[in-house]
């Protein structure tokens, strides 16, 4: 799996298990996401999406994270 075949985590259908490939760009926010567990190889799934374009809830190794869609889109996962 190379980073070019990966898709943003926001495009995963809810409940599908996948794993983190990397982040699209390294920024303060994506480094924080990594600090919170979204490191390459970590299993991840979208639990639910808040109504009206709100944030997404991710499950990363049992931890539930709430991230805005725009920020979550920088996390790339296996399709």
């Amino acid at each position, binding site marked *: 799996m190379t980073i070019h075949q990966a898709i943003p985590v926001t495009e995963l259908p809810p409940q599908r298990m996948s794993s983190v490939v990397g*982040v699209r760009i*390294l*920024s*303060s*926010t994506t*480094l*924080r*996401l*990594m*600090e*919170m*567990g979204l*490191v*390459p190889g*970590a299993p991840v799934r979208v*639990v*639910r999406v*808040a*109504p*009206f*374009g*709100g*944030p997404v*809830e991710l499950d*990363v*190794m*049992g*931890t*539930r*994270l*709430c*991230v*805005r869609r725009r*920020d979550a889109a920088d996390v790339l996962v296996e399709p």
Partner: protein
Amino acid sequence: VTASSTTRVLLVGNPNAGKTTLFNRLTGLRAKTANYAGVTVEERSATVTLGGVPLHITDTPGMYSLIPRADDEDVAVQQVLQACAHGRTLVVVVVDGTQLARNLQLVMHLREWDLPMIVAVTMLDIVEQDGDTFHLESLASQLGVPVVDARQLSSTLPAHASGQTRVPPLNPPPMPADVTTSLAPPANAFVQAWKLPTGATPAVRAWLAQAYAVLRPDQRTSLRVPSMQGNVAADVAAQLVQQRSERAQQAAMRSLSTARAPAQMSRSRFLTHVVDGVALHGVLGPCVLLAWMGLLLWALFSWSAPLMDGIDAMVQRLSAAVVALVPATMPLLRSLLADGVFAGVGNVVAFVPQIAMLFFFLGFLEDSGYLARAAFLLDRLMARVGLHGRAFVPLLSGFACAVPAIMSTRSIESKRDRLVTMLVLPWMSCSARLPVYALIIATVFAKVPPVFGVVPMGVVVMIGMYTLSITATLVGGAVLKRTVLRSPSPPLLLELPPYRWPKLSSLFIAVVGRVRTFLIDAGTTILAITIVLWALFQFPRDDVTEQRFDATLAELERHPDSDHKTTELQRVQAERAQARLQHSVAGQVGHAIEPVIAPLGFDWRIGVGLLASFAAREVMVSTLGLVYGLGDDADETSEPLRERLAAERRADGSLLYTPLSGLSLMVFFVLAMQCMSTFAALKRETGGYRWPVLQLLAMTIIAYTASLCVFQLGRALGLS
């Protein structure tokens, strides 16, 4: 004050790791709260003696790594770096046993630094309930530092604090040679600036590289991180995070044994999953949130009322008892005590029930894990307005009272977003404004025909005032956020922690701490302003008038006791109060500002009422009672006051209180920052007079303009 023999203990850890609960358990009610210099982050610390060892324990804001992203994390990082420099400091890393792999990342980061530290594992009861086994010794051997059960920390902490043994730090991964070289001079400068005991270690270089990758330019300057090539730093930072994460996962795997299949959820996670199925559901979620908020408002409005009345009665009784000790020949001292000092004390303690309730409720929601869910549901809605997701609860509680609401904005991590929320909060129409609305509506709208023949005009006006209040708050927030307080919206990166039953003892300690802080910091300001206002309404006095009233009263006293005598005495007393008020500074100011407020439809008497309402909004009503010589115990339901107001005419013979001037007055009341307690609370929260003074000026100008428009446009349209 920390004695030199006292060991410092610093509690650090991820948000939601149970740090504050642990701190409260260790220190009880001895904790002191201080604002951390320059920022609105609080520092809570306490000196306690555990097992005969004196310890100065400090709680730090939650953090995910030593690279700060917000003010509160900045404080935590500074405290850790100071611990490195200071020596004699034990760092206790609080780790959530149910989120081990993630929590251990911070431990791994701290282990790169040469720090005396131990790890305290919390939530072990939940780990046990889930049927898992935690091996503390195994974790200790992998981390190279002592690991203790947080439930036994109070007994194990003294030994660890006094017998600190340093273990060599874990090295971060090696960096490319050119990065190491280019980081050497800034690393040396950093070590000197922070007075770190060791030289430019790999940990220092790693920290600099990572800090550089994430900080905004202004933060780099304030943290003295020198410039370097950007991409290299980011790559190094990513490698560092990944290596810590791998180390953490390995250590977690070897320390926790479970009988469950990898995909199977633990009992506690399953319960959270089920509850979230409702709490975060697209339709049910917002309903649950509305129900909680309704309960909060209901509690703030109705449950606190009897408590406030009880406190008020107690203060009055105490006031009467103290005043009775003063000889009747010293009426001025009596008045100072009753209407100045005790009225001020009453003004202060009246807030206690609402503050305690709001913080109990918020603490309950926060500790149970629900507040993070509320942010998840509300983020989109609030972001559209430009307000922070966490501003919702403070704004809502502003309907009850702005003072506890301003204090509760502490949960907003971004300094500017917090300031925006605090600045617009007084526009939420608080409960103290209700008596004023009620009096005006009863006076001027009672005889106006109902709208569509069914809805009373008063109800329409009331709904209008609340609509105005909410609109002003939201528009004000949006304007501030886009102009003077423009700031990037911080990313919303929240953990949704598993639901937990909050520890009531810890909640109680937190509530007591809040109340105490309010009484000491804001309370003194409120008391001082009350006494100043008292003086403004009492002085100067006209000797001739005073003597005349004294003579009349003495004459009346000679009559035999009768109902008639009592009424006459009350009437003369009220007249004297009216005369004093007219002659006082406040009365003169009221007359002086009359030309300014006349275009709003107000006369000098309303001017005096507006001045008095600075003490507390509802004081407007009793002041009008005083102004019209009806005594100061008139309230919004009293018929004589309503009749008197409804009959009052201007010099030209026109009615003073018409629906139009009433509307203008109410609009002024919605929009003006007429509250010294809010002023005092904002002064405390922002650490100076700058923001409260600006807020007072801006809101007064806006309120004046709005009332002017209402009255003059209304007149131009031929309304009265």
